């Protein structure tokens, strides 16, 4: 490492090109670290669990158009038909489906005072009959399911008396663990919590309380409704393929549409995040390539400028490895300098993102990982030009230009 001193003085003699490379590396690090961080945030979001056995579930929409249809009869007959289809575990006519991107939500609180003071939590509501939990494939951890007598069939909307909530809601409203049997307040009415389920998610993946849900025993008698079907393992495609025909066979006065697997619902829900991750990946790849090419360009130029000097050093006894090491060390010094400035830039940039777009602050380990990546890229980029420099013949020194 004896070369450090001559390298530094050489670099100082070419202040502007040194500064440019350093700045370039610094900016690259700042962008790459933040982009990688955003990508990893999105990827963990995309993989977040729904609590449902997704590979066994699909959803569809139905719109009835018969004149004065008996919707209560229709809904019950449809549910019975689907539940009795071979390969179906359970099915439910429901107002909204997890990751379905449409539905109802409302603010609730554990006490009336909390509600009136605006100290409430916005939660998604699922409304259907007692088959909701089994169709979702989720389990009660305490309390009981709805009874048939509790199910309200209504054309409009009436207040239900009871509710089943997810454990997340229970913990938020009753941190002391006494949720079961307590009340949930919603403006001017209250419901009694009769059961707590392990997990369920809302229809909206970007909802701040996506991991919370409340179930009510209420069946809306609307012309439009959604259906969620859970099949046996491996039977999903087959059931999905038959269901429209079966439903229209029973009553042709409707349109069955938007039959989607949970995988498709998941893809649609996270479309923006997937797109963002992919765009950022491309940007990172291009950026690192550009920076690497920049290093190649500058080092090549330096070498062409110093051909005579290299030849002289070789003539004076420097080995090929010495020459190669000289240029690699030079790049390492430049890169390290860039990375130090880049770290400051990366943190500044991240603080701006946190302030303006409510992104969570970066975790520290992204910075050293980014630094090492950039350092390796720098060394790889300098390798070929440095190798070429080492092959300059000592005879060059003796030639005059």
């Amino acid at each position, binding site marked *: 490492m004896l070369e450090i001193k001559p390298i530094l003085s050489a670099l100082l003699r070419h202040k502007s*090109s040194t500064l*440019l490379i350093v*700045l*370039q590396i610094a*900016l690259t690090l*700042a*962008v790459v670290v*933040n982009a990688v961080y*955003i990508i990893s945030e999105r990827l963990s979001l995309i993989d977040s669990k729904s609590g449902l056995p997704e590979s066994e579930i699909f959803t569809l929409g139905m719109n009835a*158009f018969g*004149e004065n249809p008996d919707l209560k009869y229709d809904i019950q007959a449809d549910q019975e038909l689907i539940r009795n289809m071979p390969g179906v575990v359970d099915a439910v006519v429901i107002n909204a489906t997890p990751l379905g991107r449409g539905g*109802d939500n409302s*603010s609730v609180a554990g006490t009336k005072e909390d509600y*009136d*003071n*605006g100290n409430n939590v916005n939660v998604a509501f699922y409304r259907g009959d007692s088959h909701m939990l089994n169709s979702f494939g989720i389990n009660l951890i305490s309390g009981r399911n709805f009874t048939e007598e509790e199910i309200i069939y*209504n*054309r*409009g*909307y*009436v*207040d239900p008396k009871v509710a089943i909530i997810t454990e997340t809601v229970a913990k938020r409203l009753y941190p002391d663990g006494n949720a079961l049997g307590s009340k949930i307040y*919603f*403006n*001017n*009415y209250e419901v009694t919590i009769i059961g707590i389920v392990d997990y369920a998610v809302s229809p909206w993946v970007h909802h701040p309380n996506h991991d919370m849900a409340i179930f009510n025993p209420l069946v809306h008698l609307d*012309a*439009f409704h959604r259906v969620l079907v859970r099949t046996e393992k491996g039977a999903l495609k087959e059931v999905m393929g038959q269901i429209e025909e079966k439903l229209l066979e029973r009553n042709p*006065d*409707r*349109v069955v*549409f938007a039959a989607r697997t949970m995988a498709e619902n998941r893809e*649609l829900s996270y*479309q*923006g995040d*997937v*797109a*963002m991750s*992919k*765009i*950022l990946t*491309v*940007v990172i790849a*291009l*950026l690192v*390539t*550009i*920076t690497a*090419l*920049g290093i*190649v*360009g*500058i080092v090549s*130029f330096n070498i062409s*400028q110093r051909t005579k000097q290299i030849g002289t050093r070789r003539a004076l006894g420097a080995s090929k490895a010495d020459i190669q090491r000289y240029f690699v060390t030079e790049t390492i010094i430049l890169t390290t300098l860039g990375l130090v400035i880049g770290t400051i830039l990366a943190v500044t940039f991240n603080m701006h*993102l946190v302030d*303006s*777009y*409510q992104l969570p602050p970066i975790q520290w380990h992204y910075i050293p990982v980014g630094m090492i990546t950039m350092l390796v890229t720098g060394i790889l980029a300098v390798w070929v030009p440095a190798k070429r420099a080492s092959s300059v013949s000592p005879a060059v020194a003796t030639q005059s*230009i």
Partner: protein
Amino acid sequence: MFQYYLKLSWLSIKRTPMLSALMVIAIGLGISVSITVLTVDYLMSKDPLPGKSHKLFHVQLDTYNKGNTDSAPGGLPYQLTYQDLMNLSRSEIPSKQSRSLRSGFSVIPEKVGLTPFSRSARVIDNDFFEMFKVPFLFGSPWEDEVNNKAKKVVVIAKRLNDKLFDGENSVGKTINLDKQLFTIVGVIDTWEPTPRFYDVNNGAFSDTEQLFIPFSLIPVLELPSWGSNNAWKSEVFESYEDKLRSETMWLQYWVQLDTKAKQEEYREFLAGYVEQQRPLGRFEKEDAKTDIKDVVQWMENNRVVSDDNSVLVGLSFMFLAVCMLNTIALLLAKYLKRAPEVGVRRALGASKLEIFTQHIVDVGLIGLAGGALGLLLGQLGLLGVKSLYANYERLVNMDLTLIATAIGLAIGASIIAGLYPAWLICRTNPSIYLKTQ
């Protein structure tokens, strides 16, 4: 002289193909990434109705009770209640107005071989078509009287007309929607604004409706909402009437206010309306706000341009900056290599300004090449973006403004990048190089 400079540039590019190619690639990549991101951003946020958008206003009222505030930006709910909409629409201040709802029907085709299918519908007043400059292919909007007296008439979109009537003039024919016969009074030409600026809170990138029916049909047909319903009050709905009387916010309202004076007058009218409703026990908040926002403000309020986009715009400019730093470094290298030649030219009488200009032309030429490459790669980038988002097909296309922006950005950025190297080279002292030669 300019031509001579161009010739010199071309010669120098030929002499340093590697450095020149690297520069063109660096600029090209920088431009392609920026222009791809900018295209999406620009098309999302651009004024959809230039010259008119500032006269069209979306109306908002804060009907919430004390202690409750809407989660929408500014705390004002996006939509209105049916009762407020009916009351407000009696005002004579707006020159045009349209109430609006997204609903939908099952279309039951007569044509052999077609099975019933669902289509979303826009439920509006007849002014809607003129306010938003909807182009008609056949027929016209329904008459004014239908706005108050329900009649089963419909305007359909070209796509639906093609499907049901093979593109023929279907005005006067009927269409079966939910087993009700509607008379077709008009067919509109392709009109698929993206983003769907007239209804951004129900998905700005959802499909445009293919059925347009009179708002006055809402209580008659008891139309469901295919958009969002927001409620702060727990109300029992035994019938559709209950929903119409309720505090549920599920409708939208656009008014055209042509002058500043009219806009002021309308603001006062809204404030007066709130006071007038208070004795009825509504508008509990002492500072219950009202507002009107024009098309562009409404799009901004609804964050049609997502945060992701803004982050990407910032990132893409940092990317461009890296590419430009890269270019400056390469230019320095290239020009230093050429210093002896410049020394000779200076000695033969070329002025500093001439040397400077020549190098700026040189950089401009490389910028132009980089810009062209950037546009080409940008098209690829847009194809990529299109494939990532399901609803962007209609959105992502470059227009002339964007192409000009890309080329301008490329040349502008390269010239800025070239300033320092060109300045450095024109200061070359001729004597040094003359000596070594």
